[in-house]
Every structure is written in C-alpha cells, then in structure tokens.
C-alpha cells in the first residue's frame, strides 16, 4: 500500500476531537446497527480520535472459528497462489481453447477424407431419428458397437458399406483428442476445487470415451467462413456429447436388435430414454458449472447497497441485479447457496450461485421482521440466522422454509 505524506498523518492527528460517543453508541457502531446519519457522525469522530478508534476496534465482535472457516473458503486477495495469477489463468484458458480448436480441425479433416469415400452417411440426431426410419437398412452406417451386434443378426441383409474398423478408428482418434482437450483445459484453467476438477475430468473422460464409440459424424456442411465453421463444429461437439447418451441408452435399451428392417424402429422407441439421459447429462453439467461458480466467486455489498460479485478474487466486482429498489446490507454464501438481505427486511435466496433468485418470506406466528437486514450467517445450507437493524434475530433450520424469531 502506498505511503501517505507525513503532513497528512500529522494533520489527521491534529484535528479537533469534540465530544466522545458513549459505550452504547460505540457498541451500536461496532455492530453496524446505527442509522446512516449517526454512523457518519461517529465515523467523523473516530477519524479524529485515536482512543475511540482503539475502543471501537476492541469492541468489534471477535472473529469466530465459523467465520474464519468461511473466510478460508473464499480465496484471499493477498494470499493468492502464484498459479492463480491472471496471466497464467488466462494463458491456461487460451491454451485449452487452442487444443479444442486443433482437435476440431483434425476431426474436420478426418471427416472430409471419410466423406469422400462414404457419400451417404446417416445422422443420429434424436430429432431426425423418426425421419431416418424410412432410410433403407444398407445405407445406414452404424457405430462400431452396434455393428458388432447387428453383424450377426443382419446376416441375411446386405453387408455394411464400410468395414467396422474403418469407421471406428477415425471416430476414436478425434473423440480422444476432444475429450482430453476439454478435460485438461477446465482442470488447469479454472480456479475450482479439487473435487470439481475430478468431476470435470470424469465428465471429460466420459465424453471422450463416448465420442470414441460415437457414430460417424454428419456430412460436411457447405463451405462457410472459417470462424463460422468453428462455431458450427463446437455446436456439433455438443450434439456429439448428447449422442454419447444416445448410444449408451441405445445399448441398454436394445438387448437384441432383431432384423434390419426393425432396427430404425428400435432407435425411435429409445428416444424417450435418450432424452432423459441427455437431460441428466445437461443437469449434471449445469450443477457442475454452478458449483464451480460458487467456489470461484466472492460476494459483497457496494457502498450504494448493490449486490456485487467478483470472479477474480476481489480485484474487480460486477453488480448483480436482484430485486427492485432494495438497498442490500448483508450477503452470505454456503456452497452454491447465496443469501442477500437489506432494506425493508427483504431477503433473497439463490440455490444455484445466483442463476435464479427467489424472495424469501420470513414469518413466525404471523409476525414479520422489522427494520433492515444487517447480518446474515449460515453455517450450512439449512441452518442460518438473520439479524435486523431492530435487533431481531431470525433463525431457520430448513433452508429458509420456516423461521423463528428470537
């Protein structure tokens, strides 16, 4: 921190002190329950009186172990590890993006080469499955797993256009690169906890494994600008991940595909399972992103009473719009749960790291809290206490569903 000129310290010290606030006012100041005007007066006195500053500091509530634990969970600005420096952080993200782009490019080249030898290739998008039911069996190119199953049962039908090895190998190579790239990029680039890294890695590996077994990709699109091409590939990558679910559900739901003609019907009947699998994957990804956001973000309330959040350990803050015309005075987080309260005893809660907010109704025996919410403390997602400027303490042990006033 930069040093101030000595004259500033000297003049600060030599200001007229005036009447000292009594212990009642100092304790109210330390507990942050003074009204704005009175708080300003006390601050003005404290800025001039070293003794009262000393007393106010000693009067401030002790830092409890619970608060220390909460502070330890949030990354401190001054104690950031060297590998969390912005340069390395963004560098890792850029590297991950490059790996993904290279993988997509390699996949494109492989597919272009393959499409030249296989002009008619069916897609496995769940939306198009019903339409494909009219495609004659010989033109359907199956993924390796299914080809093994169907090769015996389709003995009477015409053989597939390409050998199993020729379709499986290129898909496997491309899938392996994409899966590894995604998992590595997230693990190194983001400031997430170890457990999340494991989750991400598992997710990436699963996706990679899935893509290895994935069906051949759709035919290459019409020539477009390179950037648009990349975007289209990214979307395609997502659809391939979903197809991973499709493949798994298909393998589970189709123990014995009977004949070539009925094969496409089986795919259609598996569609609900496919959707639920895809939805589960999507939910898992959302939950993981929410967990990552909750671990890497910090919350505070601005001077003007706006809720704000930082993703870079407090170096920059961005306001989060919650409610209308509410002056926030306190915020607390437990995992992905965020609680924010302020004027008019208004309390908001988000269970998904501020993706969605809901206003919490606090009532006990027909009574509602009075004043402003000035302190929020949650020891778990279920147990917490809210203190108002009128000195009321409201507690909940069921995540805010019911409240008790003390």
């Amino acid at each position: 921190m930069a040093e101030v000129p000595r004259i500033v310290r000297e003049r600060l010290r030599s200001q007229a002190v005036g009447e000292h606030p009594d212990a009642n006012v100092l304790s109210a100041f330390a507990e942050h329950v003074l009204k704005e005007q009175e708080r300003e007066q006390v601050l003005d006195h404290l800025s001039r009186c070293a003794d009262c500053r000393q007393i106010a500091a000693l009067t401030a509530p002790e830092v409890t172990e619970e608060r220390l634990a909460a502070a330890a969970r949030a990354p401190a600005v001054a104690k950031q590890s060297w590998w969390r420096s912005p340069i390395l952080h963004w560098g890792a993200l850029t590297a991950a993006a490059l790996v993904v782009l290279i993988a997509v490019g390699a996949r494109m080249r492989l597919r272009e080469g393959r499409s030249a030898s296989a002009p008619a290739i069916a897609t496995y998008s769940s939306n198009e499955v019903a339409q494909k039911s009219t495609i004659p069996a010989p033109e359907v190119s199956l993924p390796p797993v299914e080809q093994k199953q169907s090769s015996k049962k389709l003995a009477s039908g015409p053989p597939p256009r390409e050998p199993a090895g020729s379709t499986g190998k290129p898909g496997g190579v491309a899938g392996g690169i994409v899966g590894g790239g995604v998992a590595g990029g997230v693990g190194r680039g983001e400031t997430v906890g170890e457990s999340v890294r494991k989750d991400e890695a598992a997710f990436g590996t699963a996706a990679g494994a899935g893509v290895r077994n994935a069906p051949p990709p759709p035919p290459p699109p019409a020539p477009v600008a390179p950037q648009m091409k990349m975007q289209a590939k990214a979307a395609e990558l997502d659809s391939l991940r979903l197809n991973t679910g499709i493949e798994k559900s298909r393998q589970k739901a189709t123990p014995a595909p009977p004949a070539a003609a009925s094969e496409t019907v089986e795919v259609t009947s598996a569609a609900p399972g496919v959707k639920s699998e895809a939805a589960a994957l999507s939910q898992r990804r959302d939950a993981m992103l929410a967990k990552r956001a909750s671990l890497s973000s910090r919350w505070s309330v601005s001077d003007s009473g706006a809720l704000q959040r930082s993703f870079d350990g407090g170096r920059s803050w961005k306001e989060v719009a919650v409610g209308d015309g509410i002056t926030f005075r306190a915020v607390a987080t437990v995992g992905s749960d965020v609680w924010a309260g302020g004027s008019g005893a208004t309390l908001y809660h988000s269970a998904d790291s501020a993706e969605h907010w809901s206003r919490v109704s606090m009532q006990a025996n027909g009574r509602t809290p009075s004043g402003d919410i000035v302190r929020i403390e949650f020891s778990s997602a279920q147990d917490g206490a809210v203190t108002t400027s009128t000195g009321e303490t409201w507690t909940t042990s069921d995540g805010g569903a019911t409240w008790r006033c003390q």
Partner: protein
Amino acid sequence: MSGTAQMPGPVARRIRAGEIAELYQRSRAADVGFSEQEFARILDEIVAKYLPAGTREGDALEFCRGLRLEELALARACAAGHEHAWEIFLTRHREKLYDAARSITREDVSARELADSLYADLYGTETRDGRRTCKLTYYTGRGSLEGWLRATLAQEYVNRYRRRRREVSLEEKTEAGAQFAAADPPVQPALDPRLAQATDAVLAALTAEERFILASYHLDGRTLAEIARSLGVHESTVSRKLEKVVGAVRTRIMDELLRRGLSHRQAEEALEADVRDVRVNVSARLSQKDSASAFYRKGSD
C-alpha cells in the same frame, strides 16, 4: 400493571399508548418486575438522551423499536437489584465477559482483573449521595448488551493503560507501543504553512469514512481486515478505497498548493520534504492529546 394515559415524558408525547404497550410486551419487562409505566419512563430517558426535541412520532417509534428492549429491561432490572434479573444476567453474560476481557488483554491474569473490576462496577459498589450506583443503568439498548459490555471493558482497559503510562519503564512502553496509536514526529516548523493549509482543506473534503480508513491504516497501523471488520464491509472494499484515497490525497494537495501560488516544483518539494525522514519517536507514539477521563461524560458512562 399501571396504565399509560398520564405519562408526561417525551415517549408519551410522541408515541401512542398502544404502541408503548407493544414495546413493553416485546421487552418482557414484566418478567423482571417492571410495570409498563416504569418501562415507559426508561424509554423517556433514552429518547431524551438521543433524539432532538422536535422528533416526529414515527421516528421516535422506529428508534424505540430499534432498541434492544429485552436486554434493556434486563440491565435496568439488574441495576434496580432484581434477583431474578441478576441470575439471568450472570447465566448469559458471565463467561462472555471474561472471554471479552481475554480477547482485549490477550492475557489471563489481566483479563480476570479487568473483568472483575467491571463486575464490581456493574454490581454497584460506589455510592453517590448515599445510593448505590450501578453501571448497568447507563446501558440504553442501542447495541447488544454483550457489545456494550465489551465497549465498557475496552474503555476501562484503555483508561487504565493511559493512567499507568507514566509509571512504566521505557522498555514496556516500547513493547506496548506496537499496540496503540502511532504518532509521527511533528512536522518541522520551517515547512511552508501553505502545505498544512492545503492538507487541511483536502482532508476536510474527504468523507468521514475515508478519513477513518486513512487514520486507522496510517496512524494506528491496523490491518485491512481489522478496518473491514469495524466498517462491516469486505476487506477488498477497504483496500480499494484506501488505495483510491491515498492517490487522491496526494494529487489534491498538489493542486491545492499550486492554487495557493506554489510552483509545481515547489509543491513537489514541499510534499516530499516531509516523507524523507520518518523517524519513530516512541514517546510521541504513546502520547495522547486528550485526557483519558474524556470517555466518560459527566453523569453518563
């Protein structure tokens, strides 16, 4: 239980009887032996102390609702010698008082001594006009009772330290100097008086909070975390504000000096002259301009 119709105090003038009854009920003052009328008198005294004469009814009611009514009734009942109230007080606050004393003194023996002396004051060993005076009478419910006890302990601790200051050795002073407000050697009188004037003008233009942060960090040597705890904001907020204020103060003083007729070079020299020799004078660091007795206003705590 007596009625509230004839109450003459400011509370009765500004707050309706039904609302006083609600405050009385919330305070549970009946449990510790107070009638509604007696409790209204206590509120009268507090309202008269903190609110100006022309305060509107709504503001007075909001102020009273913001008080720690239950703890106020408990403290006043203890001061009045109510046995049951003392039992409740000791159960709730005895351990906390010792813990608070320990957190202030950072040492067990001194902590016990400090807490015991406050206990004596709370119980009321001193007599005034033949009557026992109890320190709990001064509690007004603005903050929590626990916070008030901590503030009272802190005041007593600082007062003791100041009283003892002249009796301790230089080594002890040096050792203790790290804990208290630091004072730099006075600015040399040879400096241009316009520098002090410009600095005063710039400091006066800062907000109270900015001056508080500057003083806490640069005079008292408090950490960002300690200042943040005092202000109830995040440590990063204090860091950001401090950095901004320090930069702004220097620039504004330069501007003020230029406006007062100094050349740019003179202004820079005037500002830099005083930062070259930051000497640490232990005696000056421990000195305090105001007497310790200033904490306790006459007739108050």
